[in-house]
């Protein structure tokens, strides 16, 4: 049975968890920030937009990023899957462009009824933003579900935080090199006695691909719109 392969169960759990939590957290933070940036009367709007836009072009790079995670004690934690990608400039701009297109009268009437800015965001804007949120949710979920490098870099030695993509990557790496390396081939033969890596590989490939195949046709009309929104504005 392939399910005796321990990485599979843990990997599945962690992959699902990071996808659900990461998407939810990213949606809330992204939409909240987007709403404030869509308010043309907001004092700090220009500054925050520019502050955010810079991150689309400049990044510290791999090693400063790694050192930061280390200094923040995020290595070997689940939080390292969620926190670094929480706010993405691109996603914020996609949602903001969408809010910009909503009639302002809606906010105005809510304000007359005595709603504060947070209530307007939560009760008026969010329900209307569903198409943009669906797009961003798809981007976030696919990003989380497909990511393996953060596991490799930060949690590679911690088996309880492994993800499906990382497990798949490990198997792929061992099979590509083993074809030419006698030592590896011997190791692999040994492991094959327990579970065939080929069958684990197939199993994981199916588990990681099928959910995307099922979900994405339904979201297609949204993300096509979302992509163009983001492109026009940013």
């Amino acid at each position: 049975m392939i399910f005796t392969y321990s990485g599979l169960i843990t990997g599945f759990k962690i992959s699902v968890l990071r996808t659900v939590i990461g998407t939810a957290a990213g949606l809330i933070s992204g939409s909240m920030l987007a709403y404030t940036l869509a308010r043309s009367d907001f004092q700090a709007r220009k500054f925050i937009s520019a502050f955010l836009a810079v991150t689309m072009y400049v990044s510290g790079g791999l090693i400063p990023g790694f050192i930061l995670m280390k200094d923040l004690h995020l290595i070997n934690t689940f939080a390292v899957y969620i926190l670094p990608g929480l706010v993405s400039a691109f996603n914020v701009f996609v949602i903001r462009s969408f809010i910009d297109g909503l009639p302002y009268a809606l906010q105005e009437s809510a304000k007359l009824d005595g709603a504060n800015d947070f209530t307007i965001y939560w009760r008026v804007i969010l329900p209307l933003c569903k198409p943009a949120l669906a797009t961003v949710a798809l981007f976030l979920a696919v990003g989380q579900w497909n990511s393996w490098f953060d596991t490799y870099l930060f949690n590679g030695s911690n088996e309880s935080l492994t993800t499906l993509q990382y497990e798949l990557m490990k198997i792929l790496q061992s099979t590509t090199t083993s074809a030419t390396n006698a030592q590896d081939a011997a190791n692999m033969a040994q492991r094959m006695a327990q579970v065939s890596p080929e069958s684990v590989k197939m199993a994981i490939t199916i588990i990681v691909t099928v959910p995307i195949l099922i979900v994405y046709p339904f979201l297609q009309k949204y993300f096509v719109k979302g992509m163009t929104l983001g492109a026009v504005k940013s």
Partner: protein
Amino acid sequence: MKTISSNVENVYEPAEQTKKSAWKVLKNQKYLYYMSIPFVLWVFVFQYLPLWGWTMAFQKYRPGVGFFEQKWVGLEHFRTLFQDDHFYQVLRNTLAMSLMGLIAGFIVPVVFALMLNEVRLQVMKRFVQTVSYLPHFVSWVVAAGIVTKMLSTDGGVVNSLLISLHIIDQPIQFMAQGHWFWGIVTGADIWKETGWNAIIYLAAISGIGPELYEAARVDGASRLRQMWHITLPGIRPTIIVLLIMSIGHLLGTGFEKQFLLGNHLVIDYSEVLDLYALNYGLAMGRYSFGTAINIFNSVISLILLFAANGIFKRFTNESIM
């Protein structure tokens, strides 16, 4: 009541707002600040603090030692970097794969969008489009698995096909020969991203007024001429903006593909700047040296971005800044 009217009108009349004291506005907008400041702080920590980490490249960085106790070494790490022959090989690989990716990733989606636009059967068009996005959502891990399988010597589709067509007698070891690597990466990239990148072009094409095509048809323009004289100029701004952005990302093409598709046999062709930083910086604990590589990468990217932006601004009046 006054706040509301200023909300609506200040786009056109900013004078209205400056009359009120900034403090009062700040108080009025306190919820907006509550809702944005946490994320601004977050962006500062996770996106801007790593930039502060660039100072490591000028130090002999030792982990666990305070910033002021680090030993400063000036440009030593950059000197080591530029004297390393290996660095130039890595740079060559990065530039080669980026350029191939840039050219292919730019031309193929435009051509694909133009061709798809000519498909008159709506059902067919939608079906092709849906299928073409699909690979974008498949992870690079899975994509690399598929590519490796297809190109393998025992039972790979590509080798079987070539043999059955009598083009070759012996299976080619695609994944084990360096000179195939750049092509394989570029091909995989085209397969994965063409449909996705075409979305924007298709949207731009649908924004072109139908009266232009009608006028052209009246004048007797063939479909090819319509494509050349109406569709292409119509999406020119989109093409240029995307081109500038991809030039800015030239060195930042990532390393996922190279990491996953590469192996030690092709490492002379597969190693790119980020992998170099990973293997010779991070993995060996040479944080400062690795950071120097990252800085080189980022600075060149920015220069390319500004140069591309400037050139296009000058010659085509299209730019992103």
